[in-house]
């Protein structure tokens, strides 16, 4: 990639937290601004130049027919498309609608449901277009974002670790909250990225960085049930920011089916 890649930042259904993470990276932001040509970033600048872009950062999930069209446009205009965050990568917390009746939600929430045009589902960007790189997290870790941008500029592979959150606990010396306190923690099935913040505050991991590759959430869920965690609490644990990611979805759905079978 040439010296100053043109960067575009695009928003779909999301809370803007991931874009804010980029703006939060105060120390690195100037370096980012110096190293890339920020051509389109409505959240940060009024400069909105047309494509093509060398790198597109895509935040948010697809929840409307219009967005389902627009993502194809972004893809056409972009050489390298990278999703940022759990919404873009797995559908986000708004993918909870995928288990419910979105029309009913619209009727319950809005005074004029007829003005609301929405799809029945919230889906990941990769369900619609080819994605070149997925940067995980809810929100993303700005150090990782800077690392990926640096790798693109240098033309090398990004070094964003794919190991479990547990490894970070152990490097930091954090005592395992599941083993020592019986707290339900998704760390063993979740990809690293936050440096294991929650366990260091005596909380279980919420799975913000999505499923570990080749994760084994079924074994973890079975074990947590043995530790007397009620399935009715485990289902929502798996069904959060990354709940619609295949591995987490499968285990949540499986538990729910068993709960129904057992009445």
């Amino acid at each position, binding site marked *: 990639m040439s010296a100053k890649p043109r960067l575009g930042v695009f928003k779909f259904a999301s809370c803007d937290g991931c874009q804010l993470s980029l703006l939060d990276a105060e120390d690195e932001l100037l370096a980012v601004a110096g190293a890339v040509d920020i051509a389109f970033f409505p959240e940060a600048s009024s400069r909105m130049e047309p494509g093509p872009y060398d790198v597109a950062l895509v935040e948010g999930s697809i929840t409307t027919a219009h967005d389902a069209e627009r993502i194809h446009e972004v893809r056409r205009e972009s050489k390298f498309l990278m999703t940022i965050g759990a919404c873009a990568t797995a559908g986000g917390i708004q993918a909870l609608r995928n288990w419910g009746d979105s029309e009913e939600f619209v009727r319950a929430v809005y005074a004029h449901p007829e003005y609301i045009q929405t799809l029945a589902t919230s889906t990941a960007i990769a369900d619609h277009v080819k994605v070149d790189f997925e940067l995980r997290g809810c929100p993303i870790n700005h150090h990782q974002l800077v690392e990926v941008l640096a790798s693109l500029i240098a033309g090398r592979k990004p070094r964003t670790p794919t*190991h*479990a959150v547990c490894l970070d606990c152990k490097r930091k010396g954090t005592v395992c909250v599941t083993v020592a306190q019986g707290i339900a923690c998704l760390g063993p099935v979740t990809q690293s990225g936050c440096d294991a913040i929650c366990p260091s505050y005596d909380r279980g991991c919420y799975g913000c960085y999505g499923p570990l590759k080749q994760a084994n959430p079924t074994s973890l869920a079975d074990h947590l049930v043995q530790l007397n965690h009620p399935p009715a609490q485990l289902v929502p644990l798996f069904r959060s920011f990354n709940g619609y990611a295949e591995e987490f979805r499968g285990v949540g759905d499986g538990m729910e089916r068993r709960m129904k079978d057992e009445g």
Partner: protein
Amino acid sequence: MSTTTTQTSPADPSALDDRLFLARDNLQALIDLLVAQGHQVIGPKIDQGAIVYTEIQSVDELPRGWTDIQQPGQYRLEKRNDDAYFGFVVGPHSWKRYLFPPITTIAVADQTPQGWEMRGHPGPTPKYAFLGVRACELAAMRVQDRVFLEGPYVDPIYQSRREEAVIIAVNCTQAAATCFCTSMKTGPECQSGFDLALTETAGGFTVVIGSTRGRALAEQLPLRPAVAEEQAAARAGRERAEQQVTKQFDTTDIRDLLLKNLNHPHWADVAERCLSCTNCTMVCPTCFCSSVVDVGDLAGEHVERERRWDSCFNLDFSYMNGGVIRNDVRSRYRQWLTHKLASWIDQFGQSGCVGCGRCITWCPVGIDLTVEVAALRSETAV
């Protein structure tokens, strides 16, 4: 080969007798002496619901009156009915984190008008004193000595820390359900590899000198000769630990058992349960794998080279030339166990397991390597 000063075995076998005694009220004098000699004392302390190894300055920080109850996948602290200082066994930390730190910067590079300027980054060597090292942990240090000091490539970080570290061992006077040092012939009694070894009794500690450095320490401590009752109490405590080690691990022909059964269906059975989360390898006091990464700034002008603990349970760890070699949990669990218990013997002339039980307790789903090997053994027609 480099030897450390803590490696001296007592020349006089009677040195292992509990001839000296440190009164309970004088334990602080030991800490003070170590601190006065410029050591950072690392010892057991309660933190986050467990007994961890961290810097201590006072006996008041020790887990006095507490014990640990351990099971596969479970660890709990419990009050004792006495106020013993060392009435517990090993916890989630091991001394490995001080001798082979989890993250270390090993080199830095800066771009200059003349090109890249690269320099090593050794950093100052901390002068540790480890208080409360158990027999299995002494054995683990010997295993890591073999890895880091006795091959063709000596690790300078480990070497300098190891040489500086004073080892104050403590004999176990009880054992956990996860301990199996007797099967691995590493404990529970400390035989060598320490400067001083203590056995706790109600009134204080019998003391054994294990090295010249230990002798020099002893000379400056308020020690007195132990009386027969104190020696008997110390012996009884050590025997109690030995009796409490109930976990048995049959290691007969273990190398061949594992290496000749690489396609045994039991590996797939474990893989159903294993999370490939790395916890077992991280808590294991002998596991030594690391990876080296260069961390650069956005401008590409400053790079730091870091060495970080890594694990055979990570997918990327076996990424080579465009592909992952151990591409399922089954082959990764098999790698851990066959290395630890079998090919380690080929590589280093001894087992990589010292029987401390940490991997059993700290596995979030309670996988017990001794049970897995026993199952594989029983399912194998020999």
